[in-house]
């Protein structure tokens, strides 16, 4: 595979590349397509970026959409359009102004979705911080970090927030989500207005206004639930 290395302060040609290594301060005035791409420097793409594999250790800003197979971010990424990928590993800082649709998402750093957009994935894990000004929808959510979203919905939602350590700083806070709805729910350290589900486990540190359960319900000592409805069995 032919590798194109770009160093220095460069305005590069839009187009298709096989393997692209960006080390300098690079601006691309159009769309970029690459099989494999690494960014150790600073890259600004005025159009959209399409890559099979993208590793970002430096900084990348994309004005359009980002479509890729595997995306790993240790540095900083900003996307003004949508992000569509197979897998996302966010150990650094990512900001997306459009929607994020992926098969799998793992966040140990900070991921922010602005503009009331949504995060849709099959599997989401979080030991860092995720802030979504819209909906998080996933088959499976497993979070020990912090989640902030308008709604979290899916099949299996487990949020056991004990705070998050991101970039050496420790954030001791609750996960705050107005609405959580899933078939199976397991929460601790979560503040929610409404929790609806089939089988629900509310652990310590939770403050829930309204809860509706249609299956099995478990409430730990230290969990505060104001109002409970539904045809449930208390365990």
């Amino acid at each position, binding site marked *: 595979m032919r590798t194109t290395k770009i160093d220095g302060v460069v305005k590069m040609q839009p187009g298709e590349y096989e393997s692209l290594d960006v080390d300098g301060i690079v601006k691309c005035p159009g769309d970029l397509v690459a099989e494999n791409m690494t960014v150790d420097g600073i890259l600004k793409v005025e159009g959209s970026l399409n890559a099979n594999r993208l590793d970002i250790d430096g900084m990348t800003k994309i004005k359009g959409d980002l479509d890729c197979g595997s995306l790993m971010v240790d540095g900083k990424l900003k996307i003004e359009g949508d992000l569509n990928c197979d897998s996302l590993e966010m150990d650094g800082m990512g900001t997306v102004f459009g929607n994020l649709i992926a098969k799998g998402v793992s966040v140990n750093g900070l991921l922010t979705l602005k503009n009331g957009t949504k995060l*849709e994935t099959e599997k989401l894990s979080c030991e860092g911080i995720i802030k979504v000004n819209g909906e998080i*929808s996933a*088959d499976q959510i497993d979070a020990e970090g912090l989640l902030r979203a308008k709604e979290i*919905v*899916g*099949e*299996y939602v487990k949020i056991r927030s004990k705070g998050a350590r991101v970039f050496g700083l420790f954030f001791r806070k609750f996960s705050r989500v*107005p*609405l959580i*709805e*899933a*078939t199976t729910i397991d929460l601790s350290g979560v503040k929610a*207005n*409404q929790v*609806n*589900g*089939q089988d629900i486990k509310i652990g310590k540190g939770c403050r829930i*206004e*309204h809860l*509706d359960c*249609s299956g099995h319900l478990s409430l730990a000592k230290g969990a505060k639930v104001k*109002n409970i409805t539904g045809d449930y069995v208390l365990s």
Partner: protein
Amino acid sequence: MLQESDLISKKELLEKTEISYGQLYRWKRERLIPEDWFVKQSTFTGQETFFPRKPILQRIKEIKRLKDKHSLGELAEILAPQSDQALELPTLDHPLVLRLPELLEREELKTGEVAFAWGLANLTKKSRVLQVSLENLILRVAPVLADLELAGTICTVFRVGSSLNAVFSRGFRRLNFDTGVKEIGSFALDEALRGLRGAQNQSNH
């Protein structure tokens, strides 16, 4: 504007259809249930989600009926409205399907148009129907197909004198014609699409 009686709450929907939250949201992510069917209304607990009653119940019934026969991607294609779907012409050596771009005077074909042509050709292959009659029928049916959902739609083909015609109905219901009508047969549009995909996969291997 939708009246209260036209809406069903999410809770009632899950109870009535016996699906889980996980299934509902998976089908929403896969675009099997349109996002604008999730209607938020204020209640004393905050906001609750409602759905247009008849369409959502019908849609979930269709999904449950078809989900074991089709992948989620195929279901999305079958259930999506026709107007914004363009289909690449299948790589099949089939006279009626291959004639479609020329007949319809465009390269981009809708899923329903190709499924209809395939279903029609298979239905009439043992009957003595002239190619020109089939083509004329396709021209008259194409504008009607734009507004039809493939899922659950049945096409009945019949002849009145020398004219070949088609009528579309929801579900297999026996249609009763007068004695001047000769019924040729019926086929389901979603089944036709499945048959077409199957034949296409075989010819690609």
